[in-house]
């Protein structure tokens, strides 16, 4: 880093864990980045509070060996990320260091690596013409990034209207080559390269407007798509106690969601889980495009043993990268596992700042911070008419599995989908353990979605879902009665109602994440199976006693599951379907 860039300097006056107080000799900016000189290394920190000349800073690495009087340089810039072609397939830490470029097995203190590849050539095609009027976020040209048209945009930071003076012709360029010259209203020329920077804590706002979500965001997971759909540009969260399958579910979403770009923020979770992604994704293909999964993925990994302050930054780093791809008109999915660890990082810092605590010692503004963050998701329209989206799904790890804790409550206020993982379902191995009744999707009430579903899924789709859900609830109610009164103590009809709901559970809700076919169900197939199941729900059967009811439905469930395991509409699938019809016909009441 060039010394001329520093706005002022200072000296450390106090050290309390990873909070350091610095006396500065000039103006200090809230959230600006500073560097402490420690044993010839620059350690990075961020101003989080100012008191007179004293800057309270959080250090992004260990403060071991820090001394009072150590020199500190202030940069005047907030925490920024580099945005440009080459982000995909990368593994970053929370501060956007390229982890693969780091030397050695251990993360050495003060080690920093540039996130992009400076020498790599990209084939650039201009989109704008000299003379065009452009604003921040407008497209100047594009390069091919692993098959994606990666747009080179007017840097988000540029304010006002610009005129394109010159644009590079189609050719191969490195990210730091000038690809356009713009002039502002005062006639000054600005050179634009393929890389730009943006402060992570500030939302990118270079779009015309944000739209209300309307389109289904396919995940291939039936209990989500059918029962509790999330929409493109929507938000959802997955709270669940440990061992309830949060991670398997997140990985399934990362693998098969209908997104063009997937950003994964591994925030304060197990390192081996990230290793699983590193190991498995390069061997898997995107079911929709056939391309390698890694080629649409960017991972921000700040695992639980990495510094806490950088963990807090990691979710913002990931969000900013997602917003960058959204501005190119791409459908982006951001997954954060887990937002509770991020909230805990906030709590640790608030504690050291000696702020008055809110509930469970979290900072008072926790709810506002979480809301602001979730609000950065959404579908946007840009000046050139293109639409992009950031769909956000976060996990929450509630302490003791209790959903009445501050992080879950704050998230519930802002996320529109709630995928409740249930310990009971996990214990009885009913995966994914999303409880269909406790979970909700507010998008089912959106008139935009009603219209979309009628046009793209089916005329009666929403009614079908509701009918199915009611049957599930009825099944649950009679199950309690059966439990109290005993198998013989209730009419046979009760058993039929119960077993019909079990059929929904086994055939629609449960899904084998490790089976190639069953793990990912297309919407036409989900519709087909929902209608099939609903037909059986409507059918009246002649069945003698509860044992016969159980055996009959066990048979039906078995065949339906075999259908789930077979290629849709294949001979095998149709074979099972015919078999099913035969079994049903034997017991149908005319």
């Amino acid at each position, binding site marked *: 880093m060039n010394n001329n860039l520093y706005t002022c300097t200072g000296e450390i006056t106090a050290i309390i864990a990873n909070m350091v107080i610095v006396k500065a000799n000039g103006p200090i900016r809230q959230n600006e980045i500073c560097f402490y000189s420690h044993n010839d290394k620059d350690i990075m920190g961020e101003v989080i509070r100012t008191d007179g000349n004293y800057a309270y800073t959080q250090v992004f690495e260990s403060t071991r060996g820090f001394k009072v*009087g150590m020199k500190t340089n202030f940069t005047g810039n907030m925490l920024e990320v580099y945005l440009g072609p080459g982000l995909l397939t990368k593994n970053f830490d929370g501060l956007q260091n390229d982890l693969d470029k*780091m030397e050695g*097995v251990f993360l050495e203190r003060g080690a920093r690596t540039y996130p992009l590849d400076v020498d790599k050539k990209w084939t650039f095609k201009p989109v704008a013409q000299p003379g065009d009027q452009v604003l921040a976020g407008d497209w100047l040209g594009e390069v091919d990034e692993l098959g994606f048209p990666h747009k080179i945009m007017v840097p988000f930071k540029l304010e006002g209207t610009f005129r394109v003076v010159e644009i590079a012709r189609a050719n191969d360029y490195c990210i730091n080559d000038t690809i356009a010259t713009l002039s502002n209203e005062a006639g000054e020329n600005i050179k634009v390269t393929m890389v730009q920077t943006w402060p992570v804590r500030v939302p990118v706002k270079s779009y015309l407007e944000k739209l209300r979500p309307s389109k289904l965001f396919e995940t291939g997971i039936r209990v989500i798509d059918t029962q509790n759909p999330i929409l493109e540009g929507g938000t959802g969260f997955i709270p669940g106690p440990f061992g309830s399958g949060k991670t398997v579910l997140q990985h399934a979403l990362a693998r098969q969601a209908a997104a063009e770009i997937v950003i994964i923020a591994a925030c*304060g979770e197990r*390192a081996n889980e990230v290793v699983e992604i590193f190991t498995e994704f390069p061997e898997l293909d995107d079911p929709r495009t056939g391309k390698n999964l890694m080629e649409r993925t960017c991972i921000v990994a700040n695992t639980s*043993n990495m510094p806490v302050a950088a963990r807090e930054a990691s979710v913002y780093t990931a969000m900013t990268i997602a917003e960058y791809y959204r501005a190119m008109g791409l459908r982006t999915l951001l997954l954060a596992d887990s937002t509770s660890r991020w909230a805990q990082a906030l709590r640790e810092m608030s504690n050291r700042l000696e702020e008055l605590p809110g509930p469970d010692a979290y900072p008072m503004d926790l709810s506002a911070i979480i809301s602001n963050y979730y609000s950065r998701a959404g579908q946007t329209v840009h000046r050139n008419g293109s639409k992009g989206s950031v769909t956000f799904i976060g996990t929450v790890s509630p302490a003791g599995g209790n959903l009445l804790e501050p992080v879950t409550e704050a998230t519930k206020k802002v996320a529109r989908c709630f995928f409740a993982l249930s310990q009971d379902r996990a214990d009885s191995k009913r995966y994914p353990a999303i409880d269909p009744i406790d979970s909700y999707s507010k998008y089912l009430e959106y008139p935009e979605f009603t219209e979309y579903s009628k046009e793209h899924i089916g005329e009666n789709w929403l009614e079908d879902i509701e009918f199915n859900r009611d049957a599930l609830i009825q099944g649950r109610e009679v199950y309690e009665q059966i439990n109290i009164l005993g198998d013989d103590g209730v009419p046979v009809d009760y058993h039929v109602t119960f077993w019909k709901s079990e059929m929904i559970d086994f055939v629609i809700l449960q899904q084998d994440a490790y089976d190639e076919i069953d793990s990912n169900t297309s919407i036409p197939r989900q519709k087909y199976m929902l209608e099939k199941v609903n037909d059986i729900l409507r059918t009246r059967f002649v069945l003698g006693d509860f044992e016969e009811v159980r055996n009959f439905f066990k048979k039906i469930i078995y065949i339906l599951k075999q259908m789930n395991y077979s290629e849709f509409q294949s001979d095998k699938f149709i074979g099972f379907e015919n078999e099913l019809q035969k079994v049903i016909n034997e017991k149908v009441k005319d």
Partner: protein
Amino acid sequence: METKSFQKIYYRLSNITKATCSLKAPGVGYEEMAFIQGRAAQVVKIIGDEVTLQVFSGTEGLSTDSEVIFTGESPRMAIGDHLEGRFFNSFGKPIDGYPIIEGTLREVGGPSVNPVRRVQPSQLITTGIAGIDMNNTLVSGQKIPFFADPDQPYNQVLSMIALRAKVDKIILGGMGLTWDDYLFFKNSFEHGYGKSKIIGFINTLEDSPVERLLIPDMALSTAEYFAYEKNEKVLVLLTDMTLYSDALSIVSNRMDQIPSKDSMPGSLYSDLARLYEKAVQFPDGGNITILAVTTLSGGDITHAIPDNTGYITEGQLFLRRATEISKVIVDPFRSLSRLKQLVIGKSTRTDHPQVMNAAIRLYADAANARTKLENGFELTDYDKRVLKFAEDYSGKILAIDVNLEIDQMLDQTWQLFQAHMSKDEVDIKQEFVDIYWKN
């Protein structure tokens, strides 16, 4: 502690609490070690030239004119091959009666492994205990605790696993052990396979609770030396992590920090994760596996300590007394090894996953049958047979004193299937039944 010429010495404490003391001392580094009248202490807070020290063995009897010597260094210890077969206290002093040893000093509690340099764990660790090897298989590089009630024999099970596990080195981090338990570990290890494989860092209940905070870092730094520098397979035993966490809460309380859930410090998750995440498979073949003990109070796993632990570790193991055989088993229902999928049916026989699931399913049916029996209902023929199966299964296979190879476990489970159940009831893929179901 010998004094050296460049060390800074002070004689004026300005403030003494139960666990900390403060003094004016300019130029001190954060987390630097110091000695106050010979007691080890560490810098935990610096404001201007006022330094707060955490005194590990407690501040009882310290006077305001105590001699304070700063070492100028963060915590270090002599790590090397000479540690083999030895037992030390929290300060690295031998407690086994043999002489002090010198060696190269290394930093304790060093940096984390770069996640992209980690290798996915894939090597099976066998223990001879079916509740682990067959139902909750351990993988090297994994971290997993026993969630145990204080009256359960967790330390015995831990030492048994350590004795049977095929690893190069076993490092015991004992926190708040009774002296009896320390001797138990020492004797059983020395008896089991001579001394060279074992290294112990022991804090007993007679020592100050705050000293415990040093134990896991010493154990894990030593483990890192053998796993990373020597490419060895290292098994680290940490018992009891609940007492470690209690010590954390004592210190945070003395530092006037605001407690979060269950009076634990808000940083409990990060504090525990920092230790457990030392479990790793290194690219060059060495690895660190952590087996820990977290004692529960009244079986409550929603308490902050087991709860945070569960979010960090790769599964958890529960012990249970199997009343039908009056022996301790690893609970097949509540226990979970998250990494078992990486090895079962791959490093082990291909029928392993199916046999495991079938046996547990039958065991669950037996539990239901027992409830039926207790409630005075009549048992069906199936009920009676699964009860028989369950009794044999827990007695001949699951009981922790049974020591079998995995293939033997599988073969014997097949025998039990055949003895008590029909092929339909076992519900295993035909291809395996064809091979293993002997007519």
